[in-house]
């Protein structure tokens, strides 16, 4: 009798508890059951109170609906999380890692994928909410800076490079429409434009934008960089910067630290033009009394960079099931719609509106995207992100040329 009970107990336990190695997203019910009671440590940039509040809401919903406890580990740089997983791997900690979910894309993703630090492949497409994702018209959802995601990261939001200005100070007709026009504008308005110092993400984005516009053969940027051609391909970029820097804010002897610092400078009147990856950034800032309500957006008619940002799961995460449930919830129409509301965050959705049910479609239709936000039709064409290897070398070259400006 005792043996039977023990055997039954063992059977029951193995049926309800999947070991870490056996998490199978396709078996969603098992994942849900496993996730209940787990604590998910989500490492995500914490520099914006809006985003932190949104993540807080996600945590509340997860606890109510799935019994998952979400802890937002605030980073000031995603690279810190990568460094953490590296350390754990170095110490041989292949299970029960400290990080369950990372908000990630681009270089960081490429690095983790290359080093074998990610869970997967092929879990993202198996999430129930993947059916709504707009993988067809948004190629950046499956290709992150030219690196295939292989289902190792789940899309969360869209990003498009958009510029902002204060219409009370700068008239719309004076605004530049391309990198070259921006150079002319800077010469006419010295000290009123700058970009964050690379390797800050937004700063590097500016360099990428100029590079994509000015290089002779943009197709080359989609391939990994080859040693011999770097100088030739990037020459137009560095010529442009040599021309631009004397007219920048602080004459390029100092640069803003990151996007929010730039935004503060716009509010203070030190900068006239800033830019960000979130088209609704200005509206959100206005709603939070961080920018005056005369700020408006504009973009380049030739196209600006666009990409997707994701969440990924480290290979040694302790709460993989909980992380999967979280990633799935982030893809839900309700969460995506709330995220796109500028009063909350304003970050664009990765979902295809046509795939949604009527009720969910209405959620999106009702959103007031904000007075400073360009409508999706006005955002202009998208330029693809270059291969990460280009940026690594561009950042190095930038540091060598301009990192010592004194």
């Amino acid at each position: 009798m005792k043996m039977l009970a023990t055997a039954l107990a063992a059977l029951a336990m193995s049926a309800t508890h999947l070991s870490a190695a056996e998490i199978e997203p396709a078996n969603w019910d098992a994942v849900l059951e496993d996730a209940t009671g787990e604590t998910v440590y989500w490492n995500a940039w914490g520099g914006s109170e809006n985003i932190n509040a949104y993540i807080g809401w996600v945590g509340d919903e997860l606890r109510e609906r799935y019994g998952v406890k979400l802890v937002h580990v605030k980073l000031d740089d995603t690279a810190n999380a990568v460094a953490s997983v590296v350390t754990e791997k170095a110490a041989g900690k292949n299970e029960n890692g400290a990080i369950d979910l990372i908000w990630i894309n681009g270089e960081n993703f490429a690095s983790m994928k290359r080093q074998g630090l990610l869970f997967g492949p092929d879990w993202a497409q198996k999430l129930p909410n993947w059916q709504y994702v707009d993988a067809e018209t948004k190629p950046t959802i499956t290709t992150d800076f030219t690196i295939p995601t292989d289902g190792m990261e789940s899309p969360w939001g869209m990003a498009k490079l958009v510029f902002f200005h204060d219409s009370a100070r700068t008239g719309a007709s004076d605004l530049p429409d391309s990198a070259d026009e921006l150079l002319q504008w800077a010469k006419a308005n010295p000290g009123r434009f700058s970009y964050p110092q690379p390797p800050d993400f937004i700063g590097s984005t500016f360099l990428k934008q100029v590079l994509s516009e000015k290089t002779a053969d943009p197709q080359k940027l989609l391939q990994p960089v080859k040693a011999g051609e770097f100088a030739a391909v990037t020459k137009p970029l560095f010529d442009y910067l040599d021309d631009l820097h004397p007219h920048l804010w602080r004459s390029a002897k100092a640069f803003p630290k990151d996007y929010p610092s730039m935004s503060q400078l716009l509010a203070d009147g030190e900068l006239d033009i800033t830019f960000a990856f979130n088209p609704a950034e200005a509206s959100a800032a206005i709603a939070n009394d961080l920018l005056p309500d005369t700020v408006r957006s504009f973009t380049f008619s030739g196209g600006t960079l666009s990409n997707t940002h994701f969440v990924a799961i480290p290979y040694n995460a302790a709460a993989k099931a909980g992380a999967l449930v979280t990633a799935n919830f982030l893809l839900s129409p309700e969460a995506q719609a709330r995220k796109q509301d500028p009063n909350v965050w304003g970050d664009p959705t990765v979902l295809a509106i046509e795939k949604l049910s009527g009720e969910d479609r209405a959620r999106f239709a009702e959103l007031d995207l904000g007075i400073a936000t360009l409508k999706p039709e006005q955002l202009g064409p998208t330029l693809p992100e270059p291969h990460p290897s280009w940026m690594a070398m561009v950042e190095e070259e930038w540091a060598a040329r301009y990192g010592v400006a004194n």
Partner: protein
Amino acid sequence: MLRFAPGIAIALLALPVIGGLAGTILPAFGYLPALGGGELSLEPFMTVLGQPGLLRSSLIALAAGVVTAAISIVLVALFVGGWSETRTFHFIQSLVSPLLAVPHAAAAFGLAFMIAPSGFLARLVSPWATGWERPPDWLIVNDPLGLSFMAGLIVKEVPFLLLMTLAALPQVPLSASNRLAASLGYGRVAGFLFTTWPAIYRQIRLAVFAVIAFASSAVEVAYILGPTTPAALPVRLVEWMNDPDLSSRFMASAGAVLQLGITLAALLIWLALEKLCGMTMMHFCEQGRRYRSDRLLRLAALVLIALTALIVFGGLAVLALWSVSGLWQFPDVLPDALSLRGWMQTLPRIGNPLVTTVTVGLASTLLSTLIVIGSLASGQRDGNGTRWKLFFLYLPLLVPQAGFVFGLKLFLTHGGVGATWAALVLVHTVFVLPYIFLSLSAPWRAFDTRYEAIAAGLGKSGWTTLLVIRLPMLSRAILVACAVGFAVSVGQYLPTVLIGAGRLVTITTEAVALGAGGNRRVIGIYAFLQMLLPFLGFAFAAVVPTLLFRNRRAMKIA
């Protein structure tokens, strides 16, 4: 049992530092098996030396270490010399503790807001005096020479060195010397510098070394106020450590070793400066000139000291204003509208970090104080500690944090120690202990041992004498030392972030993570919270002895 206290202290301090150093030095020479580095080589050093602007970055760090310490110590010496035993002195003395309570980052943010072209000072005079409708394009904050960076360091170094000096004063015959020098015809400042200062300096020397080490390797202040093209070495070090290109970890470790070299170089330069100053002073001393007309010098010293206090408090006031402001644009001196939105968003989320900060702070302070008191008490018996004991004590202060905390994390992870509260307390203790020792050792040694001889003669055991006589009589000094330790624990960033691994979050880690967002309102709120806790500690240290000994006049004096 007390016998073991020094041993415990050394183990607690030396092991993490040595373990951490090993975890940093080995990769610097190419040895980190987990990342494929199997053999020793000098390549990481080659790589780091090839980084652009490295010399400049190193010089900034070196200069910051030596110059700020020099200016601070001169200021403190002139101030104490010119104003000791006056009412003004007592007033400034009472400001020292609150100034110490302000974390470096908060003070730096406050200073930045004051002096930036779009900052408070500019707004006060615009547009009526300057005609500015928009802020001028001046490079003040993040200036290339690092002047605002050094200012940010000095405003925190001065109160610290002043505190150390005040602790050393009871051990020197200050009033007698002052009167003697005056009777010989010397001016106040000159008399003080010639007669009393050398003795005081000898007491606070180690504190000065700690200041130099900190200034040459500080990350937060350099990040906020320091030059950016190129940045000071410590800032670049942290960037390299966090580079997503994981193979650059080797170069980063080599950089950490370089940082260590810079700190050592700064200390060596300082030793040379000490000799030089000593000789110069002797020369002037022997000349016999009286330097009586020092009124201007005294005034300047007072003004500058008051200025440091004003900058810190003023900066904090502006930060506090930012925390409750709506949109506040240049050139408005006051915000258009006040709003509690920031506070309401933040308060619900600070419960956890607050609890962690306070519990870790109290625990590490308590642990450190017990060990320090034990070491000091047992040290008395054996004749005070040999020099190498002191060296181990100051090791955590002299080795740059960015250098060994990463190695320490590797060490701990290998040992299977996760992100537990106990591990965090232990690591905080490593940094808190030296400061408590620094604060407490002078008053401890200044204690008149004849009291203990009397107690022994009365037949009281060593323990009784310690608990009933020495500790109560030193209670004020002990509580101040605890307040300093608590403040140090509250302000720890890098160790908490790495060892806590995000599971254990303190007010300071939240502040920096949010400060990364550049939102001044948020910065203001967290700076205020960051400051509140240590301030409460100092208030406690001031109030409790006063209450306990309200009927004892002799206990009212420091």
